[in-house]
């Protein structure tokens, strides 16, 4: 078998994603340029080499033809959550979106996140999210054990570990239709903060009670569990199934289940 055939087979098997066979080629991009007053799509064309991600392309375009093109990035490793944008209409991290995931003749459209105010080009002002976090009652641990330690077992913390993977890229906030399309920013804190709340509420050491606020201020009822947040999360956090739905069930315990209500009145738990 020739080396070429081996490489082709290896690539088909998904072992080598960018083999030397992949040629350097020109690709088309449509990038939204503008600020809060308006803007338009501008077409760009540049060379793509094997292994490139969308963020690399932006850097190349900046170097070649648009030195003033604004985009935000930091780690280029999918860990800082800065490079969020909409790529062909999907909220994604540009540093984790590989060019070889697109068809060869596809024009790639890049837009700023729809849900947040545009600062310039692909950069949006996500500070609304920081204000949501400020509203949330922080971790309130119970007193330490007599020997000065906190104790919890692995079984207890495993469930909330998942939520700690969040990199605060706000892609889930961007895609959530309550915030994106329904004008619900005053009523609902959004999926990112629902899992933050879940990680606090399910914490074995935490003592604060956030259930009334989860229902009212944080707006759990506005989520209609359509799961787009889960679909876009680059950390693959099961936002809806493991975070939001369990919180909704806790709200049901407190406010909607008559049996639980009676039980609470009689036994106080």
């Amino acid at each position, binding site marked *: 078998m020739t080396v070429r055939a081996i490489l082709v087979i290896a690539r088909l098997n998904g072992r080598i994603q960018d083999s030397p066979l992949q040629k350097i080629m020109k690709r088309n991009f449509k990038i939204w340029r503008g600020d809060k007053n308006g803007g338009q799509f501008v077409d760009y064309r540049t060379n793509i080499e094997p292994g490139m991600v969308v963020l690399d392309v932006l850097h190349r375009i900046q170097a070649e033809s648009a030195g003033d093109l604004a985009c935000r990035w930091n780690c280029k490793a999918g860990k800082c959550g800065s490079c969020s944008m909409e790529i062909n209409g999907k909220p994604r991290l540009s540093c984790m979106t590989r060019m070889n995931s697109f068809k060869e003749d596809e024009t790639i459209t890049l837009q700023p996140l*729809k849900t947040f105010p545009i600062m310039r080009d692909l950069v949006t002002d996500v500070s609304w999210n920081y204000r949501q976090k400020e509203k949330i009652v922080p971790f309130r641990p119970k007193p330490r054990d007599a020997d000065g330690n906190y104790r919890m077992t692995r079984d207890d913390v495993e469930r909330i570990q998942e939520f700690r993977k969040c990199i605060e890229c706000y892609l889930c906030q961007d895609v959530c*239709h309550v915030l994106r399309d329904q004008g619900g920013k005053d009523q609902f804190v959004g999926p990112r903060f629902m899992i933050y709340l879940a990680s606090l509420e399910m914490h074995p050491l935490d003592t604060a009670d956030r259930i009334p606020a989860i229902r009212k201020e944080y707006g759990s009822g506005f989520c209609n569990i359509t799961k787009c947040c889960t679909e876009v999360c680059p950390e693959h956090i099961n936002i809806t199934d493991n975070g939001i739905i369990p919180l909704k069930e806790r709200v049901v315990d407190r406010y909607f289940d008559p049996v639980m209500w009676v039980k609470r009145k009689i036994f106080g738990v």
Partner: protein
Amino acid sequence: MNGQARGGYQSGVAVTVRNDTWWISPLLTFLGFSTFIIYSTWSALQGNHYYYGSYLSPFYSPLIFINPYAVGSAPVEHAWLGAYPSWWPTFIPQSPAFLILAFPGAFRFTCYYYRKAYYRSFALTPPGCAVNPLPRRDYRGETFLLLFQNLHRYALYFALLFIVILYYDAFRAFVRDGRWGVGVGSLVLLLNATFLACYTLGCHSWRHLVGGRLDCFSCDSLSKKRYRIWQRVTFLNERHQLFAWISLFWVGFSDLYVRLVSMGVWRDFSTWGN
């Protein structure tokens, strides 16, 4: 600036910049649910051909009242309360399915997975991710008209009962005229009860009630036991959508199977040889 919306986003229902086939899944969901709703309503209205040999269609179980004169109906002693009473109002069809379908119906209607599916494919709220929803002036989510969704766990309690009933039917399907045996129909009904159990026991409310509501799984021996159950339920819960579809399809197929065998269209292969 040349009329382009902010960020290059256009308004309009189902408008999106996405160029993939995002619409296939809501479309298939729409067609799948519609087919099921139409078939199950039609079948429930028939009031006949729901019984054959020892097989009882799951749409018709449990039998509360029976009209023993309908073709393909169960023997009257199978009904909890016997034949339809004389005072039965004429505007309610004398179909046993009519009395019970509301329970599984309510269970599926308020199921978290089905909610997701029909909010997307029927209510277009939103039809897909990063796809414009049906515009509405005052979106209230599940805080207002849909508040009743919060009572899903009560529908669950009935659904748990139905697992027992359907397993009972499945086991009865292995006995005909006092003789043990097995037919394709017995297996169909056994699978039906099993798929339904896998769906029901993966319910989010169930997962919450068995253990999810605890903050500390290790604090006492009961919590530890509940944690083990919670882990099992979580396994099914992660496959909830899958079992929602399999059990939906299979319950419809089980009814169709019994119906066609009872009508003589299909032949049921069995050890009883009829």
